[in-house]
């Protein structure tokens, strides 16, 4: 490894790993559903960055990146968006049932 310790792919890989770690911590240990949902989005963001890193590392034949992981990430983002929308709807309904702030109603 050269003196400049990180190339871009390694840097983003590490960032992705940190996001995955933070997100996993939040999903497992946080109390409220809203926070856990946000943690899930961090976790997802970390995984998507790793896909980007994979795209850069897998570039061959003169391309600057492998397009397949990027296509996968777009699908992944759509899926994560849908998941978030579904969860938000449920949290909102739960808040209506509780008559107060839903974010306090985790378990």
């Amino acid at each position: 490894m050269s003196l400049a310790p990180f190339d871009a792919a390694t840097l983003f890989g590490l960032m992705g790993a940190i996001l995955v770690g933070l997100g996993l911590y939040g999903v497992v240990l946080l109390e409220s559903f809203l926070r856990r949902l946000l943690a899930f989005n961090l976790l997802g963001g970390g995984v998507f960055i790793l896909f980007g890193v994979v795209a850069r590392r897998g570039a061959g034949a003169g391309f600057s990146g492998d397009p397949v992981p990027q296509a996968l990430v777009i699908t992944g983002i759509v899926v994560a968006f849908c998941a978030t929308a579904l969860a938000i709807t449920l949290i909102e309904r739960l808040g209506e049932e509780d008559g107060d702030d839903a974010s306090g109603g985790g378990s």
Partner: protein
Amino acid sequence: MNAAMLATTPGGGLLVAAITVPVIGILLLWLVRPRDVETVALAALLANLGVALAVLEKVAAGAAPLVYLIGGWQPPLGLALRADGIAAVFMAMAAIVLVPVAVYARGQFGAPGERRPMVFWTMLLAITAALNLIFLGEDLFNLYVALELLTFAAVPLVSLDGSRETLKAALRYLVFALAGSVLYLLGVAIIYGAYGTLDLGGLAALRGPDGALLVAVGLMTAGLAAKTALFPLHLWLPPAHAGAPPAASAVLSALVVKGSFFIALRLWFDLLPPERAVAGSTLLGVFGAAAVVVGSAMALRQARLKLLVAYSTVAQLGYLFLVFPLGLGSGAAPFESTAWTAGALQLMAHAFAKAAMFMAAGLVYEAIGHDRIAEFRGLGRIAPLTVLTMTLASISLMGLPPSGGFSAKWLMLTAAFGEGAWWWVLVIAAGGLLAAGYVFRILVPAFTPPEEPAARKKPVVVTREAAALALALAAILIGFLPLAPWPLLAVGRIAAGAP
């Protein structure tokens, strides 16, 4: 198997139909008049059953898998659909379970035109499509999308009645499921980074004793275990499955949790090099054994029927994970082993028996207005057919002969004895005894004559009782299949021809 040799086989179009028929059904639901919704959904499920049986017939007759290349593109560029023996069997099993569930669910969710029946029937067909895609998919990312479709269709069913408890149960289920699928996706990223392909057939040819593959499969298995409710990640299951309407619980417990299990099965038996898989499979077996014991013990302590049945699901899913150590530890080709057949039989027997059990639990609730087990005296007089259904389903859950549950557990015991693995024998035997304990807690009061004659709260609908009874009978009938490894289940397995 060489991925480059894949081509669409005759009859491959059926695989496309398996996924599109339920989706077309969903579109039709929203086009027809509200009072025709149930008929259209039932027709779509019957068509799906026809497709699934045709696929099974073709795979069995040709003793070769059906393949369809989407758009004619070869993997790794394109996506393949492939029905091998076990996929065809499970697809037919799911299709068979769905029809009685639909018959049972007719008219249960309020008047036509309201929101709840629309949600239920849409989600039921969406679950059908997602399960078929899981059974047929060959691409790991395609399977991820299918898993998410399955989750998104299953979660609304949990909170269908909109009460506070079910909303919380649904959210908790969603959190577990989403965390599980992100872990799965992380594994997909690692596999793509290491191998540059996500096609299972292509990966099986490339696989080696590789650290990246082990890490990826480990992450994916953890994610899938959360979705399958493997102990100790089972905490979401009992409130979710007990709170859903009975018809929905039947589908969730019988089929939805099996989707993620099926993918885990494929990862371990198709992707991992056998010598690496053996060590990890013991760990999965230990979790499975713990699930059998803890799930059964929790079921023994429940005061309400639906929670008891839900905890019994935790226990019965535990047996499925014993397939990993028993199937991989024998040293023989895993797909021809007794354990492989035992796992498939256990999965089917549990699906039939558990769907029947949840549907019967719903009928009990309607007959006497509650599901407190302590007050079941005289149930046999009030709802004889329902109690018969519960008895037959219980025979299979306990593993008494003749039943699918007996065959599955007998084959598992045979496999465990064959490998000299007496500790699994202990678990299987203890699980059977505990299961007997919890089902007799239901059946003994139900068969006790009442102190004073009681009346039904609601009139009985014979077709609904018959639907539950048909599923319980199916659980018994598969016990008459031969007690030997089943050649159909080995058809077209990826590793069968690979070194």
